[in-house]
């Protein structure tokens, strides 16, 4: 895990200090509340979205885009069509805060099981798969560009 983006490592460490389910939920709800800051702008995409941006297995209808920056990094954008998809929104905010602007080769080292670091190991299989799908899609965008 030493080669993942530093901001992601910091976020994981922050969450490691959380000891109760309630505290974790409160923290994640706060993150989800700032989802508008990472919601895809119209200059990038408008509905109906291209299905290639849809996150497979995500029951909250999450979508991911990666915008190439001049410095070679990526700025990630998201949408979650289900207004009740708070977990997906929180995950999107975490990924934007920790991976947008990070070195692509470091992003390619990110494993989808970071979801458990943020949501806890008690998360349901279906929910976990959907959130891991968001992580996988973000990582895939970086891998695609490092292979090019």
């Amino acid at each position, binding site marked *: 895990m030493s080669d993942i983006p530093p901001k992601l490592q910091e976020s994981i460490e922050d969450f490691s200090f959380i000891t109760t389910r309630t505290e974790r939920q409160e923290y994640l709800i706060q993150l*989800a509340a700032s989802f508008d800051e990472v919601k895809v702008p119209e200059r990038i995409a408008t509905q109906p979205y291209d299905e290639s941006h849809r996150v497979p297995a995500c029951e909250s209808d999450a979508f991911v885009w990666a915008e190439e920056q001049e410095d070679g990094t990526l700025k990630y954008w998201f949408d979650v069509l289900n207004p009740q998809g708070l977990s997906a929104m929180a995950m999107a905010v975490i990924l934007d805060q920790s991976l947008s602007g990070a070195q692509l080769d470091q992003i390619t080292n990110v494993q989808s099981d970071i979801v458990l670091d943020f949501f806890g190991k008690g998360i349901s299989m279906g929910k976990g798969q959907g959130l891991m799908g968001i992580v996988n899609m973000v990582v895939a965008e970086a891998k695609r560009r490092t292979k090019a």
Partner: protein
Amino acid sequence: MSDISERGYANSDVLVTTEWVANNLNNPDVRIIESNEDPLLYPSGHVPGAVEVDWTSDLNDPIVRDYIGKDAFESLASRIGITPDTTVIFYGDKSNWWATYALWVFRLFGHTNAKIMDGGRKKWVDEGRDLNREVPSYEATDYKVPHERDDKTERALREEVLKHVQASGQLVDVRSPAEYTGEKLHMEGYPQEGALRGGHIPGARNIPWSRAANEDGTFKGADELREIYEKEQGLNADNPVITYCRIGERSSHSWFVLSFLLGYDDVRNYDGSWTEWGNSVGVPIEK
């Protein structure tokens, strides 16, 4: 949507309206229970007085892939302060997926005095009804389950599903068409339904769960439901049906529709679903 009693359901009393719930928030004979797919929803705000039943931490055994046993259910029911006579009203996100799932599990333990709030959480929120974040505390009861968990009447296990397939029994796969066909996802690294193989159980009809729900999360009327399940898909109400999806949650929604709204006598939910069948040795699949 028309009044529940006017929709032609076989058992219209298994549904209550949001208005009914709003009028019964302080009814001591009623317990409102929220059960969601998303674990952040209840703590972000819920129907005043509602308790949460989380399917992962409350209804599933932590070690075995199975539901909790009799003792654990008695503890859960006692903790949320219900008795066998309490009318429990489930509601939740995703057009009541998890609400019907929780209701199904409660019925395995004989708590049949259970209903669904039509339209679920979405309808409650869309109507601008009150939400609060206060987690209520009710006086604990000493709930006793009348029998061991009933895994026969409304639940199907793998071997029974296999026999059902061999007998050309009716199966309903409630997943999306792409899941049903086993269509390969186009980018590597994406989860494949947690299963080694894609496809469906041989002979299963594909009737996505969402076809039974309106945009506002309420259930469609009986005529519309019969049009879908019987006229279009050819289900016969007189013969046994097994529903399944990925882990049994979406299929509990269809189980609820067939069992109560259309009044089928023999409907079982296969909670092992595709995550078991698609990984099992010695069972056939169809693509």
